């Protein structure tokens, strides 16, 4: 097996394009060579500059699109963990989950759906909610209630796998029984083989392939819950004419 020594580092829903039935990965601007062992010094400063206004965190050392960055990178404020293949792989998983919650037909109520999507966006809670989601492994996916059974099944399998990385119940049990097997579970998450094979096997389902369950525009609650009072006041007072215009446009498009 030959490997290209380049890591993408910004896997996101916006950087995967559909071409026919296949997908291509674009935007290789942030990529890094795998053989560079340590994080480059200027990358650390990059993240410091971009997010210097976030007071609760000493230093954020991740790059990429926030919603899809791996939980362990989000939690990693000590700069010990360097973005590697395993983080890129986890980003692919977040892309699938995010798309499944937002656009695939599922049983979430609008309030729950908004809650899940906000957790992806929230600088404060994203890391913890991602960890929690993985720890609940397949039950987390079950709770979304995806209508397409094979999609739900493959995500459940993936979450059971990644649950090991964040210490799911299954991982704890396995560790007690067989330390080596538990470590093997962790290792398989660091290379492409396991995730690729899981996805490829699931895609062989011809009934699923024939289904036409395209993107659904599902209801999401819009609220200002995450704005501070000052931000809310500003939003109101700054440009009232513009607000009116926006509201009337929204009404018009809803009617149309």
């Amino acid at each position: 097996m030959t490997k290209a020594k380049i890591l993408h580092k910004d896997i996101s829903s916006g950087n995967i394009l559909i071409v026919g039935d296949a997908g291509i990965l674009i935007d290789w601007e942030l990529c890094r060579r795998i053989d560079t062992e340590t994080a480059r010094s200027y990358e650390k400063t990059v993240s410091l500059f971009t997010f210097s206004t976030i007071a609760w965190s000493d230093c954020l050392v991740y790059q990429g699109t926030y919603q899809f960055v791996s939980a362990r990178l989000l939690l990693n404020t000590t700069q010990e963990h360097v973005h590697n293949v395993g983080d890129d792989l986890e980003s692919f998983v977040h892309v699938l989950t995010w798309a499944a919650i937002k656009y695939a037909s599922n049983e979430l109520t609008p309030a729950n759906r908004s809650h899940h999507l906000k957790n992806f966006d929230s600088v404060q809670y994203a890391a913890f909610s991602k960890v929690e989601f993985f720890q609940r492994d397949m039950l987390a996916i079950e709770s979304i209630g995806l209508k397409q059974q094979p999609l739900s099944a493959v995500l459940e399998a993936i979450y059971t796998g990644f649950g090991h990385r964040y210490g799911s119940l299954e991982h704890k049990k396995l560790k007690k029984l067989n330390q080596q097997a538990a470590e093997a579970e962790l290792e398989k998450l660091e290379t492409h083989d396991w995730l690729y094979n899981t996805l490829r096997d699931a895609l062989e389902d011809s009934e699923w392939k024939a289904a036409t369950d395209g993107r659904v525009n599902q209801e999401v609650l819009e609220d200002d819950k995450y704005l501070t009072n000052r931000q809310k006041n500003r939003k109101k007072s700054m440009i009232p004419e513009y607000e009116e215009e926006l509201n009337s446009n929204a009404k018009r498009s809803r009617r149309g």
Partner: protein
Amino acid sequence: MTGFGELKNEARDEPFTLGQPLYSFDTEVPFESDTMCGRDTRGQITLYANAIQATQFRTHSFSFFINRTNCRLIHWSRSCAIVTEEFDYTKSPWLAEFFWRLSHASKAARGFDTTFTSTTNKTEEKKARAALHLKNTDALYKVVVNDDVTGKDTFYIVSKPFTNNHIFPVGRGTRCFKAYDCQTRAVVLLKDTWRVDKYEKEGSVYRELHKAGVRNIATFIAAGDVGHVCGETEIFSDVPEVKRPRVHFHYRLVIGTIGTSLTQFSSTWQLVSATTSALIGNFLFAYP
């Protein structure tokens, strides 16, 4: 519009501190004043500067800020805003000299990106409009891309970008266009961006990935620097490296594949299938 000026008449609206510590125990004073009014003023002028670079093809822009008799000149770029020291414009000639220099400067020196030119060839224009499905009233620009490996110039015709990442004041400011390739007459994707210094050029990454035979990545056409740079001045030479603003190079990349967004999937199978093939593209594995 070339630039703008903002006038205030209240000391409390001052967006920048004078470098004087407020309390005796303060050792370091942040240049940006932290009062509410000061922040509002900073937001206001940043909004104006941003409106210019979001709606025009600019490399940089200039503005002046006057509070009572105190004046500062500001240079805005993709890296940062550079602000001069305060001077009394009623006593010193600098503001007048600034206007004189600005009005005598070339278009490029005033910060207009002159590499976006208007199209001259009528038949080519017609073909481009047909290929890009444009109305007769849509603006057209001709862009040149100088490939940094082959050294060859290639020309493209574009209209409005279909992305909106360039509307933010600093950063890469990427604009992606559906472009008409004047050489092959095909529709391609042109990415106009300000790449960050020290990162590998995206074009060389594409070249390497193709050479390694990686599947599921876009076909590569051309890429190269435009010749504009920002954030690289000697005024930062005595600033520690971690505190310096990022250096950006204006860069263009042309790829041959235009896909649809992953969120527009026509079936959940397609969603997973596209993600899976992108996964292969992410990291080359010689799968059987």
